[in-house]
């Protein structure tokens, strides 16, 4: 009898052990499944990023030659239109047409300038700076557009003292483009903020958020906003945000576009605060 009981308890122990192993295998399988899913998503995202980089590289090669070929005839048209404008001083109606041609030339030239800025992807001259210089410059340069729209730009005073390891001229341009983009997006009397974000985690990175209370970006388009020539606006070249992305990446940072919970768009920029961090990221020799 004792022998049978002993065999029963052995069997129960074996079954329990089997169940335990099965349960652990099941949990392990679930964990692995989630990991495979995460890796597949990450791979998908990297592939999309790679495809975007390839598109940018192709555009870069084309842009310089294209700019030269476009600016030569553009220069001639611009000169002839300004001569015509002078000739038609006594015929205001015709003079307006000549002026419109000149304005068209200026718009095309702006497109060429944007393409060049985007395609050049100039090697940044990274140094340690306080953000104050870039922020002051942005608030001065954006003032006319803000006034025209009756919009208000609030800059977090905490950011002025923050330091960033970047090319200050490029950073200014990136922040300007983000603010101009926000000015275009907001309604009359809209609001735009530049504040410190919380993505940085530690002091080796600084996070800058530019956000507005405009209509925001539909979620399905968020992954496309940094693509060159992608725009939802009726004006502009569609290169403003692509230039921003290019600048932030070449300065060793990252940028993401989001939709704010209570409406509006927000752009989250993360940049290194020291040369050492950039070196860790493999950005410096």
């Amino acid at each position, binding site marked *: 009898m004792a022998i049978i009981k002993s065999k029963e308890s052995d069997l129960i122990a074996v079954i329990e052990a089997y169940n335990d192993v099965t349960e652990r295998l099941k949990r392990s399988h679930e964990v692995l499944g989630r990991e495979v899913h995460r890796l597949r998503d990450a791979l998908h995202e990297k592939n999309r990023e790679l495809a975007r980089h390839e598109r940018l590289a192709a555009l870069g090669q084309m842009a*310089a030659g294209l*700019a*030269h070929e476009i*600016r*030569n*005839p*553009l*220069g*001639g*048209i*611009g*000169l*002839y239109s*300004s*001569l015509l404008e*002078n000739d038609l001083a006594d015929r205001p109606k015709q003079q307006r047409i000549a002026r419109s041609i*000149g304005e068209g*030339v*200026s718009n095309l*030239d702006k497109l060429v300038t944007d393409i*060049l800025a985007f395609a050049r992807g100039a090697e940044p001259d990274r140094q340690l700076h306080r953000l104050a210089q870039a922020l002051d410059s942005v608030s001065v340069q954006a003032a006319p557009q803000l006034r025209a729209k009756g919009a208000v730009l609030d800059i977090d005073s905490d950011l002025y003292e923050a330091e960033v390891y970047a090319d200050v001229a490029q950073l200014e341009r990136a922040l300007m483009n983000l603010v101009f983009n926000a000015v275009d997006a907001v309604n009359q009397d809209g609001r735009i903020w530049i504040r410190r974000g919380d993505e940085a985690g530690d002091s080796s990175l600084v996070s800058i958020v530019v956000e507005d209370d405009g209509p925001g970006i539909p979620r399905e388009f968020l992954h496309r906003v940094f693509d060159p020539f992608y725009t939802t606006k009726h004006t502009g070249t569609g290169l403003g945000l692509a230039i921003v992305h290019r600048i932030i990446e070449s300065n060793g940072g990252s940028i993401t576009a989001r939709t704010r919970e209570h409406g509006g768009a927000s752009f989250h920029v993360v940049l290194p605060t020291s040369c050492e961090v950039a070196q860790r990221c493999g950005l410096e020799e």
Partner: protein
Amino acid sequence: MARICVVDDSDILRESVAESLTREDHRVTMFDDPVEALASVKRVGFDLIVSDLKMPRMDGVQLVRELRASGCETPVIMMTAFATVSTAVEAMKAGAYDYLQKPFDTAALTVLVERALEHDRLSRENEALRKSVEDFTNRVP
């Protein structure tokens, strides 16, 4: 009125620049080939050269270098589609007076041309005065 040489391989730009300068009463000679322009400048002599930066056979910077190497001090204004700091600095180092970024209007062209001519005139005047002073001091026992 000044004698101005315009060098650009782009027909529309060369002709529109020439038209603008002719209307300002300058006498303009056009070249689509910088090598021909170089030979003519050495032979004829001009008061000012307005040249494209990027051209086949010889670029604008090389054109200025060749001119300066031959002793020709005619001021040169460069026209460029890529007005980067580096190209501007390179052109200036080679001896160009200034540069214009395409596209530009007649006002920008005229102002720069007049300034270059005035600068050249003052330089020559200054040189002549300096020489006079030297001659005078040499004559004084």
